[in-house]
């Protein structure tokens, strides 16, 4: 019976403790940035490098510059496992931390972004979903608090079609070609479908949509369909373990690897390494450089890892998704800096950072100052356009590293922007949002 007493006592203790709410004392002159990360679960291979990139960039800014204009960055990680429910819990936990609350949130999951979009305007926390999330959020008149520059899924899909056209010898050559879209069966994976469908009508290529269910460890059926279909090109929207499996399966059916193009979430080192040499030739879209040879990496090794290159490599330095974490953290930090130029050098509130994001102008010269010359493209955000529709570049895995194999490919603004505006207008109507004027 003793053990039962223990059980009862244990339950009592749990009940008593659950009444406690986590509170934390933070210094007053700090800018708090919440970090929604996933270092465990089926998406960890993608989540770890991203999280390390963010952490290292913030640490770099703190160690090298003493913070943003003297205001140190405080950041706290919260594990989401790429699960929307845990993501919301994390957001609720962290949104009021620090002296001014969360300055901006990078959900790093399209599912979580969808959850947070309605909350953003109420909680006054801007969302920076860099190249993911809801594409229609690019219309800043409806989605005041959401930013998805430098480019979106729809723009990316249009640039992919343009790339295929370049390879085939012109947009008119697309007629009759077979393109398959292998996508994660979720809000994220489906994002590119409307654009691809519209372009398929416009240019006459035959589009097949192949959904892979979460988490994507089992794809035999999908690739059997691919084998039967024999598409000329495959576009993939995958994430986490799904990418590795898809690349292995494609290699197993001996699909031409250089006709297999992933989106920018399906082209990191963790995706291709497991398939070893079979993955050679696989391509993916991206919007920033690969490798660790940029100035920014040298500074990270110096200021974050005290010159210990091996330790930095252990923490994914130079991997594609690590670099993406750097770019994203940089945009966030620059937005805070922009906000400070108007409101003064003190911790910014979410509202002030929103202004900073909307007036963000990262020029080539600024990128050079940040040690990111040639690493990514300049971005200028505006009130109406939260996307900027920036170009993408195609990288190819040669079995050892990623190399750029194309020029910057412009997106099809003429096709994508009207679709964005239409979808945003529908969203506004459904949710009783009065679009603001941006003139």
């Amino acid at each position, binding site marked *: 019976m003793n*053990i*039962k007493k*223990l*059980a*009862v006592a244990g*339950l009592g203790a*749990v009940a008593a*403790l*659950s009444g*406690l*709410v*986590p509170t*934390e004392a933070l210094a007053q002159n700090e800018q708090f940035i919440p970090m929604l*990360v996933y*270092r*465990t679960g089926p998406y*960890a291979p993608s989540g770890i490098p991203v*999280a390390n990139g963010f952490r290292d960039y913030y640490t770099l800014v703190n160690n090298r510059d003493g913070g943003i204009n003297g205001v140190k960055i405080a950041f706290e*990680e*919260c*594990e989401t*496992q790429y699960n*929307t*429910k845990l993501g*919301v*819990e994390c957001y*609720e*936990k962290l949104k*009021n931390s620090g002296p001014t609350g969360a300055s901006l949130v990078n959900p790093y999951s*399209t*599912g979580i972004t*969808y*959850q947070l*979009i*309605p*909350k953003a*305007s*109420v909680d006054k926390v801007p969302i920076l979903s860099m190249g993911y999330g*809801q*594409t*229609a959020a690019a219309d800043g008149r409806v989605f005041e608090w959401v930013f998805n520059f430098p480019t979106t899924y729809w723009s990316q899909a249009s640039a992919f079609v343009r790339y295929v056209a370049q390879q085939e010898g012109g947009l008119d050559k697309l007629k009759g070609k077979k393109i398959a879209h292998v996508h994660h*069966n*979720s*809000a*994220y994976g*489906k*994002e590119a*479908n*409307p654009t691809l469908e519209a372009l398929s009508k416009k240019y006459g290529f035959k589009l097949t949509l192949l*959904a892979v269910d*979460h988490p994507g460890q089992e794809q035999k059926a999908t690739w059997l369909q691919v084998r039967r279909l024999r598409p000329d090109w495959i576009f993939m929207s995958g994430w986490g373990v799904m990418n590795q499996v898809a690349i292995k399966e494609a290699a197993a059916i001996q699909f031409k690897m250089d006709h297999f193009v992933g989106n920018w979430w399906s082209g990191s080192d963790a995706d291709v390494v497991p398939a070893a040499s079979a993955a050679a030739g696989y391509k993916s879209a991206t919007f920033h450089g690969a490798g660790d040879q940029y100035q920014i990496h040298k500074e990270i090794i110096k200021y974050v890892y005290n010159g210990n290159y091996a330790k930095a490599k252990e923490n994914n330095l130079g991997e594609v998704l690590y670099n993406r974490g750097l770019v994203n953290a940089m945009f966030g930090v620059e937005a805070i800096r922009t906000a400070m130029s108007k409101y003064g050098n003190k911790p910014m509130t979410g509202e002030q950072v929103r202004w900073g994001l909307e007036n963000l102008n990262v020029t080539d010269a600024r990128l050079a100052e940040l040690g990111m010359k040639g690493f990514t493209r300049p971005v200028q955000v505006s009130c109406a356009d939260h996307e900027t529709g920036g170009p993408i570049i195609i990288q190819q895995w040669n079995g050892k590293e990623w190399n750029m194999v194309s020029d910057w490919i412009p997106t099809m603004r003429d096709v994508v922007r009207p679709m964005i505006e239409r*979808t945003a207008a*529908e*969203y506004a109507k*459904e*949710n*009783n949002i009065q679009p603001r004027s941006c003139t």
Partner: protein
Amino acid sequence: MLYRESGQFKTSYEADQAILPIPQDRWFLMAVLLIAYLVIPAVSSEYMLQAVLIPFLVFAMAAIGLNLLLGYAGQLSLGTGGFMAVGAYMTYKMTTAWPDMDIIVVFLLSGLCAAGVGIIFGIPSLRIKGFYLAVATLAAQFFLSWMFNKVEWFYNYNPSGTITAPPRTVFGHVVTGPEATAETRYMVALILVTVFALIAKNLVRGRVGRSWMAIRDMDIAAEIIGFKPYQTKLLAFAISSFYCGIAGAMTLFLWLGSVETEAFAINISFQVLFMVIIGGLGSILGSFLGAAFITLVPVLLTNAPQLAGLQMATDLQKHLEVMIFGGLIIFFLIVEPHGFARLWQITKEKLRRWPFPY
């Protein structure tokens, strides 16, 4: 000493048939309700309400639903997530089609839709039992989540397949959508759960509940004494799915605000099943205790290192949480295989004899 029935005499049938025949129990329940209705909304932080208490209420609702089916009628179902999805998607469809309809009415109507779907997927229960039935209901889970993903009509043809709760009011208060405060949403969820828990409690004490238990304990004997297994089992499926449907609608409208089918995936079905098993089969109280254990303990474990002032890597913390939580489940199942409800009962018996146990 405090908790004794001696000297309490019941002089009417009403008193004898009361849900809680002992005054101390009634006072205790009153106190719990008072705290839930008055104290908690006043003192809780938004995080506490939004991330801890509202999910607890949602899962309590789903667990009551499954407990009616599994604990009382003895029909093993793994389709809970699917039935919740029906509730969520139908509520969304109805409220976007008729924006003027009261959202509570929409909740109830979508519960009825879920009940209808539950009846359809309950038909196999007339022929197959136990684990085989579990597999048949698993089909419901997969079919429904596939359907809500595939048929664009269910999410109004929006490109991402995500459904978002539009703002709706009840008596002039915004209860859904981003503008609704956590307190309002908590209160709506609490009222729904209180009302439906009371209905469930009375249901299982009456003729319907007795017929379910008869079928559960021995279906042939039940049939011989005059219960029709056909109606009884299907009624159990219908009412259980109704509860799950309401829980699904609450998930979308009161808790998350926007969902895709992944929010109602198979692991939700398992989670609710574990709640029922750990809480106690065939007990409404058990549904609450089980839901509390499965939803609150992980949140507590996540925050424990910070409460204790420990600095810990995020991934290590998550791994520890999963391990400790798993260990706790096994521990409690070994200590009391009949669940928390039974543990609660034992505690009450001990309390009767306290401080002079024999």
